[in-house]
């Protein structure tokens, strides 16, 4: 650089005020996102860092000892006899929930996407469980699902002997999935309904002129056009399914055996019931990694599945 160029740059620098337009814009932008950023830092990032820190320690709450043990808790993940079954139960629960919830929500949305008198009543009816308190909803179901409870009473009235729903590993898993689906299917239904109403009518008219069957119309027009919503709901539902806790705590406490012990419930047991906060933290890191990988994979899949994005 020549000396004249340097002195020009210096002059330039002197002339320009500190608060340039770009800086002002940037500062305003940061100020706008500051509350959100503070919240995320305080309630997400710092706890996440602390959980990782705890996962490297053995923390005996009663004896007030906090000892660094390196990767021992992570090695324990590999030798934990119950963990494979817990992950299996988590996968079954998530898969069952996502398939049942999404298909039922889509079916309901298609059925309710009609211009009929009183259709709003049905829409409200199917949506109403979403606003009911989760624990109250689950407690009522726990009474219904007892061996001498309401559901088996109704079955007995038509001469069918119902199973002991919450005491058999298979029916217990089905029960927790169905209770959760009925609770939240309304939310996905409303999202699908909004998406369906955004599909241009003239496309169907054109398809009809071309002689496409209703199924073909659904397959070729509806599904591709609502695919962004399908992606969104699938991410919400899968992430939500991995966080299920209250239903398990109220209905089965993870039993019978450990057949309905999903990952969140297992980490709750380890940390808060067995006071193994270090290992509990390690399990929550595992959960974090699983959620992150699944969300990333779904996001990648959008290129193949999602027809178009605004």
């Amino acid at each position, binding site marked *: 650089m020549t000396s004249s160029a340097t002195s020009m740059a210096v002059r330039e620098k002197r002339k320009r005020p500190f608060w340039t337009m770009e800086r002002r814009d940037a500062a305003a932008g940061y100020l706008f996102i500051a509350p959100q950023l503070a919240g995320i830092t305080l309630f997400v990032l710092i706890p996440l860092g602390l959980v990782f820190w705890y996962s490297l320690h053995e923390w005996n*709450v*009663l004896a007030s000892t906090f000892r660094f043990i390196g990767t021992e808790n992570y090695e324990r993940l590999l030798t934990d006899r119950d963990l494979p079954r817990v992950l299996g139960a988590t996968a079954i629960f998530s898969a069952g929930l996502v398939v049942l919830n999404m298909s039922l929500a889509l079916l309901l949305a298609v059925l309710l996407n009609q211009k009929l008198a009183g259709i709003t009543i049905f829409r409200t009816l199917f949506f109403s469980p979403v606003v009911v308190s989760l624990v109250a909803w689950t407690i009522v179901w726990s009474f219904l699902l007892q061996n001498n409870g309401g559901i088996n009473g109704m079955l007995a009235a038509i001469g069918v002997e119902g199973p002991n729903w919450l005491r058999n590993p298979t029916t217990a898993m089905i029960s927790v999935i169905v209770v959760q689906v009925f609770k939240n299917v309304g939310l996905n239904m409303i999202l699908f309904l909004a998406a369906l109403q955004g599909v241009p009518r003239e496309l169907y008219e054109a398809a009809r002129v071309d002689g496409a069957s209703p199924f073909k119309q659904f397959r070729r027009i509806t599904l591709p056009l609502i695919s962004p919503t399908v992606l969104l709901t699938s991410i919400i539902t899968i992430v939500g399914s991995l966080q299920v806790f209250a239903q398990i705590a109220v209905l089965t406490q993870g*039993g019978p*055996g450990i057949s309905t012990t999903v990952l969140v419930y297992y980490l709750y047991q380890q940390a808060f019931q067995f*006071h193994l*906060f270090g290992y509990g933290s390690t399990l929550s890191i595992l959960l974090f990694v699983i959620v992150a990988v699944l969300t990333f994979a779904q996001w990648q899949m959008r290129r193949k599945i999602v027809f178009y994005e605004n």
Partner: protein
Amino acid sequence: MNHLTRLKSATALAALIVPLAFAGNAWAQDTVNLRMTIWSANEAHLAMFNEIAAAYQAENPNVTVTFDSLPFDTYTTTLTTQIAGGNPPDLAWILETTAADFVNSGALAPLRESFAAAEGYELDDVTEQATALWSSDGELYAYPFSTSPFAIFANNDLITEAGQQTPAELIAAGEWNWDNAIAIAAAVADAGHDGLIVRDFNYQIWQNLASIWRGWGASPWSEDGDTCTFADQPMVDAMSFIHNAIFETGAMPGPGESVDFFAGDAAMTITQISRASLLPQGDDAFDWDLVPLPAGPAGEYAVIGQAGIGVFANGANPEVATDFLAFMTNPENSRKLAQFFPPARASLLTAETLGLTNPLLSPEQLESVVIAGITNGVVLPGHEGFAQIQQTVRAELDALWTPDADVEAVLASVCDRIGSLL
């Protein structure tokens, strides 16, 4: 205002503020707020505790005591979470099952010296049997304020309706044993009601079955706590008996069924005497009796539940908390506590004293159930790391609660799973 005036005013102000600030500091140091976590939300219990606290406060005006009622189901979890969060209570009720965890961890402050020094405390009056669970190496870490025997409440209306002899009649005939007791339960169940309920068991809290299996001399682990004895013959026999009563004779309600003895639906229930308050009055009342547990193949026995009060060594004021505990459990206040919680003091263990505060129970019932129970009883099983052991055994035992279960195989698998935890 010139410089000098300003200086004068500032000095005057400082002269006013500084002593006030120091006085405030002194008050702050002297005022002690003690917090005790409990699992009862019973108003009568709270009124009694507040009365004791008020009496203590009259002697120590700088101390206040608050009682923090936590839900029973998640009591220990909430307590340990408070400790983990750096907010331990000063004093806490502790369940017998978790006694080993608390006593051996070093979390609790030693009490013996303070109790011995407290005027008129009479530490020798507190039976050694009652303090065994709460002691380690000769030091006492919690006071056993409640020692409650398990007993059987019987619905004599349902029993006679089913054409059976009442427990009292069987006791008089010297035939009050498990075979006859379960036969009564089966007969009442056959008559369309329910038989015997082990209260709070619910196919989860398996340690409450100790009220049955002790009759076979069974226990979940060896006395030193090192060896699993779930698969030993006495436990196999006792569990076979229970399994048979559930799935063959229907004498006990099966898993997933909710039945309430106190609503008059069942012949008998095993529970602690404090539940007498649940007995229905008026039109719903039935002819009931309270009897000791029946004799098992291993003879007569008794099982007790215990609760202790400990002081947290890491609390803000362990000395004051210990002093309050000594006050709360002195002979005079122990007499008050005995209204609701069977006492650990030998001098209070008389039918006369207990009768004053348990009007529902007859002197015979108090003598045969409460006093004999407390004197001879074995405490419910507990162990270090009990929460994890409890959960592991619960999960394994689920395989037992099916009609075609292989009792021996299930119990062997219990030992296989908890061996490493003992």
